[in-house]
């Protein structure tokens, strides 16, 4: 399990993350949602060790994450867009990532589903955006890490490829592994996610099961619920959120008293 404890990050005068505490439950798909600039990417980068938190702690299976980065053996990452060097062949990229993680069990399911063998000798610079995104997904799913972090994973994929990827995400969950996913397509997240973490202005406003969020907001869909939360935030009606224990422990979403915002 990955646990973030009172993470704070500031860029210049901007508080990007303010005391964010979040646990990504083992065997669950957790959707990280929020408006643009809410701190989702920074949070992901802190988990990956790309960005250092000013304060707070990151624990992986109870152990503090260190600078050496060995804890990242437990993490697979799919960035929003693939930017592999244009003059490398697809095979070079896949081999490089495999060699950087020696000894890890390789999972070729997605590579087979996307027929990577057919494009193995092609230069990355000659691939279409969608095909690059498939390579991006294959790199992330090449191993069997305990946590997969997927940033807008279906962006740029055709419907069939997106469907294959979503099936793979479900398979990962069935294997008891965790997924932290961001997307702006709420309908997609609704079909995949067990938990939702809603960030706004760098603060975690909700963390809990999807059903609980729908119940509390009265929204029929995840999109309704999240849109409702965003409207409340924009109107200044801040929601005070209390989460107890790791997600999906009981969480409450309650309006703050009038004038407290």
């Amino acid at each position: 399990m990955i646990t973030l404890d009172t993470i704070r990050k500031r860029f210049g005068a901007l508080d990007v993350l303010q005391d964010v505490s979040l646990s990504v439950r083992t065997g669950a798909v957790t959707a990280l949602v929020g408006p643009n600039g809410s701190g989702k990417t920074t949070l992901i980068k802190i988990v990956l060790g790309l960005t250092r938190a000013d304060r707070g702690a990151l624990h992986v299976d109870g152990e503090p994450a260190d600078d050496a980065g060995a804890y990242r053996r437990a993490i697979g990452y799919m960035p929003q867009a693939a930017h592999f060097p244009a003059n490398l062949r697809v095979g070079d990229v896949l081999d490089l990532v495999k060699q950087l993680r020696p000894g890890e069990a390789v999972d070729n399911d997605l590579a087979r589903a996307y027929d990577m063998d057919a494009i193995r000798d092609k230069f990355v610079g000659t691939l279409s955006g969608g095909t690059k995104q498939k390579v991006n997904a294959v790199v992330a799913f090449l191993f069997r890490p305990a946590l997969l972090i997927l940033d807008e994973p279906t962006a740029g994929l055709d419907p069939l490829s997106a469907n294959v990827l979503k099936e793979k995400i479900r398979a990962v969950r069935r294997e008891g592994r965790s997924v932290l996913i961001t997307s702006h397509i709420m309908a997609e997240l609704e079909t995949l996610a067990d938990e939702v973490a809603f960030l706004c202005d760098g603060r975690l406003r909700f963390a809990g099961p999807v059903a609980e969020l729908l119940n509390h907001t009265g929204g029929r869909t995840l999109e309704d619920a999240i849109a409702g939360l965003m409207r409340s935030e924009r109107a200044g009606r801040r929601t005070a959120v209390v989460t107890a224990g790791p997600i999906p422990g009981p969480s409450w979403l309650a309006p703050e008293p009038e004038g407290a915002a």
Partner: protein
Amino acid sequence: MNVVLLVLQAGLRDLSRNRWIVAYTLSFLGIAEGLFWFGGTGPQVLLSLLNLVLLVLPLVALVFGTIHVYASREFVELLLAQPVPRRELFAGLYLGLALPLAGAFLVGAGIPFVVHARDGATIGGVVALLGAGVGLSLAFAAIATWIALFTDDRLKGVGLALGTWLVAAVVYDGLVLGAAAAFGNYPVERPLLGLMLANPVDVARVLVLTQLDVSALMGYTGALFERTFGTALGTGIAAVALVTWCVIPLGLAGRRFLRRDF
């Protein structure tokens, strides 16, 4: 295979197929071969190439290097997300940029001297030119890497790279000459020697020219340098200075890479 070698191998594969690197190699090859073709003797070709090396090589290493580091940013983030130490990743990324640049120069400028080995160029002169070119490639690739890690604004980064080139390759010597003229009545020899060592382009020039009997081309500081240290010691000092010019910017870039947020 360790992380440094893996990332270096990927960098070599990528840049050896890069059209700009190929064009850069062919340009040096064409110009050096052309100079021999049009009747130049070895020493003449060496001197002509030296002027080109001192002007073009820092420009290419700085501008290409800065743009390359910016363009690799997302790929670097993906590599940083793997369980690999930052220090090793940085070493692989730097060498993956600097070695193809140095290799392109070595191949482009070196092959014509091998082909025309009987045309009178001294081995010492050729080795000094190629060594100075490799040193400049490594030094300016390190400076380019540092610039690109220093600022996230790509336009500002490329501007800084161009400004650095303008100062090092064009303006610096004029400023030193101006200072020498302005303070001509004072004992300025030692400060001027220090100023010469403070510019890798000047260091490379002196390194090559101390191997040739052409004091007149050394410029004020170069002539002073040779008079003060003599040829053998002068070559040694210039070589150490050039290595220092590789190590210091590399150290700064590495420190920045280890500490910065991506």
